[in-house]
């Protein structure tokens, strides 16, 4: 009996040890899910990278007014943020087949300069546990989520930028 218990304990611990070690070497980052580019091409979320610099990943929709207000506000200050911290803003539209086709023209019409992806059936949204839009994630250089925020109020971008600067400088957020 003791032997069996010992064997079980060892097995569990060994397995755990392997997992823990493997975990340390692997940069898990955000989940791997297929999304679409504005040209309709299927791409993996793995291509959302920024050479070790921070990424703002924002879920939005063309019909979501607060989302559009947020992205308008970010658009004005994006060039300054990029110059100062190297941050990249990636926006993921959850517009479904009803309005997905208008996302490209909409983004261009707004004059936004973001990297844009489509998530028409909510696969990426589900993988990131987004309940509602807008939902904005801040990823560090290893693509790990270090902060997230749902909804938008004017002024939120100032706080976000404080966090971006810390992440870009490699400082911990807490």
């Amino acid at each position: 009996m003791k032997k069996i218990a010992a064997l079980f304990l060892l097995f569990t611990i060994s397995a755990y040890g392997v997992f823990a070690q493997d975990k340390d070497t692997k940069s898990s980052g955000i989940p791997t899910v297929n999304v679409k580019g504005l040209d309709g091409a299927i791409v993996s979320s793995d291509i959302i990278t920024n050479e070790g610099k921070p990424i703002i990943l924002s879920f939005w929709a063309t019909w979501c007014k607060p989302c559009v207000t947020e992205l308008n506000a970010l658009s004005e200050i994006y060039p300054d943020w990029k110059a100062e911290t190297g941050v990249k803003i990636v926006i993921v539209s959850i517009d479904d087949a009803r309005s997905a086709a208008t996302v490209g023209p909409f983004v261009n019409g707004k004059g936004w300069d973001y990297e844009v992806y489509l998530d028409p059936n909510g696969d990426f949204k589900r993988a990131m546990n987004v309940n509602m839009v807008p939902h904005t994630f801040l990823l560090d250089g290893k693509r790990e989520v270090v902060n997230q925020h749902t909804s938008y109020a004017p002024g939120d971008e100032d706080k976000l930028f404080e966090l971006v600067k810390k992440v870009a400088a490699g400082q911990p957020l807490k």
Partner: protein
Amino acid sequence: MEFLSYLNYFHRLTIQRPVNLFKKLVLSGVALLGFSYSQAQINLPFEVHGNFQVDVQYYLEDSSIGAPPVPEEVLTNGFGNLTFSRGNFNAGLRYESYLNPLLGFDTRYKGNGITYRYADYTVGDLNITLGNFYEQFGSGLIFRSYEERGLGLDNAMDGIRLKYNPVAGVYLKGFIATQRYYFDEAGLVRGADGEIALSEAFEGLKSSKTLITLGTAVVSKFQSDDDPIYKLPENVLAFAPRIRINRGNFGLYSEYAYKYNDPSAINATAENPGGIYKPGQGMYINTTYSRKGLGVSLSGKFIDNMSYRSDRAAVSNDLHLSYLPALTKQQTYRLATLYPYASQPNGEVGYQADIFYNFKPGSKLGGKYGTYIALNYSRANGLDTTRTNDELGYESKFFKMGPDKYFEEVNVEFQKKVNKDLKFLVTYIYTLYDEGVIKALGDKYGKIYANIGILEMQYKISKTHSMRAEVQHLYTEQDKGNWAMLLLEYTISPHWFVAAFDEYNYGNEIKENRLHYPNISMGYTKGANRITMGYGKQREGLLCVGGVCRQVPASNGFSLSVTSSF
């Protein structure tokens, strides 16, 4: 490898020192465990994430607005998702609770339970899903499985799905599954989809400026024929080829769908109470042009007997396989949601045009901050049909508009930033809405013509405080007459908001029905946690979120909503 060496170590130990084994193992085990924990803290061997939402409503009876009495007084909808992931392995589940379902949600949701669970693994180019999944083929003309929790829509599949990506640019998918039906399952559905991006798949096309993607979906559903009178098709096949062409600033997408005969509760007529045997057809075509500062999108849609569900007796929003959204603008201003179009699966032809334009800052019309303008036009008509006295029901012509106009809308939107703190948005909407057709109320309900004007102002008081106001007015001589609405919202970044609005049906012909629908709400947000509370009256009407509409009942009372994500 590590694991094998542990086993080896264990094996050597047993041979050399069997007596002290247990002691040693426990000691080393405890040490290892301690080490792991000190290193990892809450770092489990897999990642756990999730989200949560609960909506609670306390109902007050109000016969003046037609709010029905709620014997339970309090109704609650809630759900929580958990996902576990490690490398290429994912698993997850969702628990849902409706005690009892909120007004407006189907009462068949009543109860609790795990409604969604899956395991998913990727080995090289192959991805395998066991259990529940959501999926969409093309634009969804013949198949879309999705969730819209806020509207109580969820037609998740339960079965096996494979996704295979043998070479770059080639994507194959296949599944066999049943479909969610509230807390139960129904149907038997098989589907396959293939897509090839030519410029990725063929070496010679890699440098081509024209990108072409081809795809085809095939779906088949099975339901046994238990009908004593009619001979019903037990297997109903549908297929939908599609093409996408992109070149520079231009894009073109087109999808055609064909469905074999599928008599159902939806296409039943007085002459064919079991449903007509006419095959279904559908087509969606969209073309876009866009460059920085300008975007144009033109779309057309033809739907002829395309309701496709995993059960032929299903009605309302149950057991959809095809996804046929309205080809109209998704309205978000409250009064503009009074008359929303709902697609007619039995037959319609629709068109939509969108133009988005930004007058550059510094230009004559742009001013210092630029001026944004958006135009939208949409229209939907019935088909041009000839009734036939057989089991096919009628004859129709491909993509040909009939004389009956179901819906037409013009949207004009301006946005102007006056200075760095003040912004105006002006919207004008003209709507033609055939109530008899769209709400399926019959001929005695006619067309409603409405003109809506909206002025919105956003003002930033300080770095964190801001205000928003909306004035809306709807003018119509039909239905309930004129409406006015005023909304005020105050936000303090990053945590607080408070809002109040009143919808007032001041133009109602019947004096007693000139009602106010006042509402106040406030909320607190911290990170991905959000709590909102509200009190007020809600008018009856269609609520449209994310491309589908649901009838919400009139209600009066307190509401509380909590959402969280981690």
